[in-house]
């Protein structure tokens, strides 16, 4: 647990220094990244495509946490619970009720929004590390709740559920993995754009005003309780959609896939990507997916220790994560252009 608390403390400092203007990428960079995301899968093997799909999905979940923590200044170590609910809703609707996979995602999003909004009510009384602990409790409880006997008829209990992978529609000439990648990309891009809009809007300003100074926000007419719970709801809703997508991609849901390790991984992804910087969410997701593999490549027996060292290096060298790297390289490019 002490490790988790340290992560929280680290995150807290990072929150202090997020100017709103630096929240997105420039137009040119966005187009290059988008082109890469569209083209790369055409030349990649199925396993790589699957990993890229998972990168987008985890990136979406980290983005959701970023809206909550970077935007409204509230911590959560319980994102795995919302992710689990989303995954199970999709799996159960697809397998038990034969509903189309694409239609299950909005259902997962809306239900998780409600769940997050309700959870945000008691969370109003807590802040900082105490809020992190309360959400931690949620993450700890979720796997066991999913195993409950009376739910077993739908959830498959400890066994979990196998999910059928969808084929490409309209006879499109692409494999299941590639279709799922492009499907995920469209969903993730749409949510990314909505999130950027949200944070730049009146509601987003209210979130950030609360993060910076609750009393001042309230005297400007911001309903602090409402916007804090809304931030929880939005974050949980997006996490639920990510969970739903993961159920389709992984083709399997089981209670123990959604434990506290997942929640801490998402938190880690947020810190590594840069708290409050939305594009960083996907860099953070790449870190939590690929760096454990790299660590295993370096030393099989000590992969955990190698991962720890790599993480330590990142935190030590770039405490503000990928956002810091982006700002520094932007300055370097600026200098280069002048010369």
């Amino acid at each position, binding site marked *: 647990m002490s490790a988790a608390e340290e992560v929280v403390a680290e995150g807290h400092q990072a929150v202090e220094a997020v100017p709103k203007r630096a929240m997105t990428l420039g137009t040119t960079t966005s187009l290059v990244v988008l082109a890469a995301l569209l083209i790369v899968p055409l030349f990649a093997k199925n396993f790589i495509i699957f990993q890229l799909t998972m990168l987008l999905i985890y990136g979406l979940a980290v983005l959701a946490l970023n809206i909550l923590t970077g935007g409204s200044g509230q911590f959560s170590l319980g994102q795995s619970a919302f992710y689990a609910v989303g995954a199970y809703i999709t799996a159960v609707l697809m397998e038990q009720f034969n509903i189309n996979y694409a239609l299950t995602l909005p259902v997962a999003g809306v239900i998780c929004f409600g769940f997050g909004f309700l959870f945000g009510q008691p969370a109003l009384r807590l802040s900082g590390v105490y809020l992190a602990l309360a959400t931690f409790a949620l993450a700890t409880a979720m796997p066991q709740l999913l195993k409950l006997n009376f739910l077993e008829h739908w959830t498959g209990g400890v066994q979990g559920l196998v999910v059928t992978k969808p084929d490409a529609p309209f006879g499109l000439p692409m494999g299941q993995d590639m279709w799922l990648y492009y499907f995920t990309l469209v969903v993730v891009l749409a949510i990314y754009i909505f999130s950027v*809009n949200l944070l730049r809007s009146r509601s987003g300003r*209210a979130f*950030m005003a609360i993060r910076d100074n609750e009393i*001042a926000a309230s005297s400007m007419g911001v309903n602090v309780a409402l916007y804090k719970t809304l931030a929880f709801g*939005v974050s949980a809703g997006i996490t639920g959609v990510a969970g739903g997508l993961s159920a389709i991609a992984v083709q399997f849901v089981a209670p123990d896939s959604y434990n506290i390790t997942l929640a801490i991984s998402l938190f880690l992804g947020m810190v590594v990507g840069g708290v409050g910087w939305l594009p960083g969410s996907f860099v953070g997701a790449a870190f939590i997916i690929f760096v454990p593999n790299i660590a295993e490549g370096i030393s099989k027996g000590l992969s955990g220790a190698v991962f720890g060292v790599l993480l330590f290096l990142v935190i030590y060298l770039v405490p503000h994560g990928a956002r810091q790297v982006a700002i520094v390289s932007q300055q370097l490019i600026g200098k280069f252009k002048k010369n």
Partner: protein
Amino acid sequence: MTQAQLAQGNSPLLAVRDVSVVFGGIVALNGVSFDMHKGQILGLIGPNGAGKTTLFNCLSRLYQPSSGDILMEGASILTRPPHRIAEIGIGRTFQNVALFPNLSVMDNVRVGTHARTSSDIISDSLRLAWIRRSEADVNKKVHEILAYLDLEDVAHNTVSGLPFGTQKRVELARALAADPKILLLDEPAGGLNHEEVYVLGDLIRRIRDDRHMTVLLVEHHMGLVMSIADHVVALNFGKKLAEGTPAQVQADPDVIKAYLGSKDQ
């Protein structure tokens, strides 16, 4: 009676009626009453611990009075939660500057318009046409206020890096963005040098005249209060000590005693 009062007749814009505040046995305010009339600059003075800030916090609904009432245009404000004070036209600044440090100057002032605009998270996420129109109006208004307070050069700067005096102006801009009828200023001269206090006094008077505002000025700086206030209320130990024009209050024997100590001591 000041000119402002004569022009407005007898119905006050804001009325403080017999307000008392007790904190676990300590009486912070004891039956304080006074009226504020439209267009007035009312100075609230008193030594440390006199209850000025307590009264101020009652007006912005951070404290609940134990008894008494506060009426804005005849209606009690005491049933309103703190976030619904801005919409009835009460704006404030804070004693030690309470801005949103990680936001730009523009965004700070944009938050000031929160009570005068509306939106919901779905329309905001989709940037619907009516949201774009409303944001355009907000931007126009924010630019006008920034120009008025000479803050255009720093509009895109993050607030935390600005000098203290500038931050105070940003706070004023944020309060003005909510179109308040009454502006509550909590020790605006605190931390400013002699020259800056003089400029501030001028600015407060200008805001009152240009933007038709009523100002409650809670202040330690006697020179500032006496030079710009139309009407002064002096507090000591939670009670109203004296009330009147700056000259009357300054000459009041009780006020002199509270500030300088009595001859017997």
